[in-house]
């Protein structure tokens, strides 16, 4: 099992969700995040002063999947989030040793979905 963490542009969240649904991945968790990356990005200004927006708003997705779903998930995220522009985001894949469903105490692969 893997835990996939993806940083995407906030306004791409719906597109990514749709692509994931298409690949039958329905479970995920999302958090707000501020990201520092290659995207030096658009400049905001406030009262005429440029705001050094080097922490840009991102959405952080966390998706736990069984091994055979990893590539599918990655592809779906890319399909939904890619524009080709700097700032599209990153995907991180991490090992996941166990999953427990709190409701039923199910464990492992059975609990993930």
């Amino acid at each position, binding site marked *: 099992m893997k835990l996939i963490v993806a940083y995407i542009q906030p*306004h791409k969240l*719906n597109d990514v969700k749709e692509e994931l649904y298409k690949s039958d991945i329905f479970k995920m968790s*999302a958090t*707000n995040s501020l990201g520092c990356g290659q995207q030096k990005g658009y400049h905001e*200004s*406030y009262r005429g002063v440029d705001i050094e927006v080097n922490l840009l*708003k991102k*959405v952080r997705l966390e998706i736990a999947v069984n091994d055979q779903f990893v590539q599918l998930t990655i592809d779906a995220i890319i399909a939904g989030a890619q524009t080709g522009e700097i700032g599209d985001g990153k995907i991180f894949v991490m090992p996941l040793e166990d999953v427990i469903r709190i409701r039923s105490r199910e464990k492992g692969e059975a609990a993930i979905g």
Partner: protein
Amino acid sequence: MRKRLFMFVGLAVLLGGGQLFAQELTLEEIKFSFDMIWLIFAAALVFLMQAGFAMVETGLTRAKNAGNIIMKNLMDFSVGVLAYWAVGWALMYGSSSGGLIGTDQFFLAGADSVIYRDWMFQVVFAATAATIVSGAMAERTKFAGYLLYSLVISAAIYPISGHWIWAGGWLAEMGFHDFAGSTVVHSVGGWAAMVGAVLLGARRGKYVRVKGKVTVKAFPGHNIPLAALGVFILWFGWYGFNAGSTLSGTDPDIAWVATTTTLSAGAGAILAMFTSWIWFGKPDPSMSMNGALAGLVGITAGAWVIDPLGAIIVGAIAGALVVLSVEFLDKVLHIDDPVGAISVHGVCGAWGTLAVGIFGDLAKVGSGLTRAGQIGVQALGIGAVFAWVVVTTLVLFGSLKAVGALRVGDTEELRGLDISEHGVESYSGFQIFSNM
């Protein structure tokens, strides 16, 4: 030289035994002073309705567009006052050409203190009509286009239909009665809002067509307490709007008007609450707020000629009506009006105008018409103003659309107008899911 030594003057007067004033202050000046402070006080209250609209509209839309809504509300007033000073007043209250349009007093030429007083009281009404529209067109309109719209409605659209009704124009001649502006102000704003919302189209993602079936989505407002504050401020301002429309500080009916206004608003809020409760299963806050406003808009035309019980009925119907209308526009017609402006101001404005015919004391209306006749004239006025506003705003918003000045692009809309149109955020530091 003017000094602020008023207290000494005051003392002198007290010591001087009144002689000073007996010479100075005539009865006509007394009457004039009553009207002056009453109308300026009322005008200040109506001005504050700008804050009310700004808060309601901001609260009922999404955080990522809050600064843009604010800017629209600030600038439609600012542009509006200059436009109404230069042109609007003249077209509305200048000498009438055939009951259709005013023709002089541009730039308030030749104004005396009476004209300044009346202009002050009228300009805040003009600004109210203008600002209604920003709510319905929220979250997707180009800022520059909106500025232009503000100019035109305050300079021409509002004043001309206003002339027909409030400046002795042809509708007034026929006996049309609209005490404080259910039609003159609110419907004008409401119908303009409708045309704007239709030409703009819905916000991205509002109506999703899946397999031929349209699913309606909700974009919940981001700040209900602010919206509620706006509603209270509007209600407060309405005491200036309606009671001030007695146009006289010595009119004993000031209290009557304030009473009917209060009761209608209360009834509107209650009925909207129960309607939403029955319909959706829970009493909906934003609908109840709309209900209070619906009651206020509804009684505006008849506040002076409808009695308290009548006011409660008018308000109650407006409260139910506004919920039905919001539902109908959203779920059936798929017109995307984020704050319910079309229903509150357009539909309930029309209802209130009609209600004058139905519930109004005909003697007070004073048109000499029968009840059926009065209802007919009221309906005619509603229709005439509807036609006028729809046609002119179709041209206005249509032209803006044709030159691409009406709607922002998709990415701008998704990112939010605060960033794309103004380069700022409204809630800096707060973590907000701005994608929703």
